């Protein structure tokens, strides 16, 4: 049985579902609702009250030793790290989605003594 469900999801349409024979364990329990979907049996606010909150010192990307490169996939960041570490003291710190469009959909952030602040470079040559 298929059932179409309209859900606002930040530009991505989630449409109905169909149960199949695939057996995958669900690690927690929950209450049932529509076929294929359910609402877990718990309720608490997502915007919390007195829960753990951390604020961290911000970076200035133009002055601190943090170097960024655009890549096609997250895995490319590791390939780039391996190659950079042949000659420079840098380590992969973060991978970010790049919203700017184009093929370089991810940004690798490197830190370390040899990381250069200010500019990030398109590094298609690092792929493959």
């Amino acid at each position: 049985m298929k059932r179409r469900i309209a859900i606002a999801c930040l530009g991505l349409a989630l449409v109905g579902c169909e149960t199949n024979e695939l057996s995958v364990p669900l690690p927690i329990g929950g209450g049932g609702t529509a076929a294929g979907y359910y609402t877990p049996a718990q309720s608490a606010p997502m915007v919390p009250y007195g829960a753990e909150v951390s604020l961290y010192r911000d970076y200035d990307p133009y002055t601190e030793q943090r170097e960024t490169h655009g890549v096609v996939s997250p895995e490319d960041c590791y390939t780039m790290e391996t190659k950079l570490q042949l000659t420079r003291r840098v380590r992969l710190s973060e991978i970010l989605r790049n919203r700017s469009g184009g093929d370089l959909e991810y940004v690798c952030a490197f830190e370390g003594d040899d990381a250069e602040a200010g500019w990030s470079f398109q590094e298609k040559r690092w792929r493959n």
Partner: protein
Amino acid sequence: MLTIYQSVNRALKVDDAEAFQWSQLPRPGTEVTLGNYRWIAVEIQPYVAQGLETIYLVFVARAELPIPRKADWSWSFMKRRSPNLSFNVQFSRDREMLNFGWSMDGAPPKVLRLHDYIPAGEGMQAQPRPWVIQEIYHFLPQTNGLYSAIHLCWCDAVATAA
């Protein structure tokens, strides 16, 4: 309730590989449509924080393709290279998803100001966005999860320099 969908299939455009919803949770093994593709929910991992709604990380596989072995999932590669891998996602107060990323050492985002990376000449230049992370909440895997933590970041709008 925040549900984060991540594709286990490699070589997808980023907007097809990730989705975020504040709504229902699919049952494992059921089919969903996200973006341009139909998917099967193959695994669900809850991440918890005291006093907060659980975040559910739902791994989905392309419905028309064989489900890859877990060792071949796109994120498994990152986990092997970065055992403390964590995920972070930034939202505005009205729950607009602003960006997301991964930290190799499990830490929350180190740069609180959100940036775009704009092609400029032969390179890319970081350009500040009018958003800054104000609060970060740390969710830990309830069972063995892919990530050491999911960091949920709430952002406020700030003025940008002229």
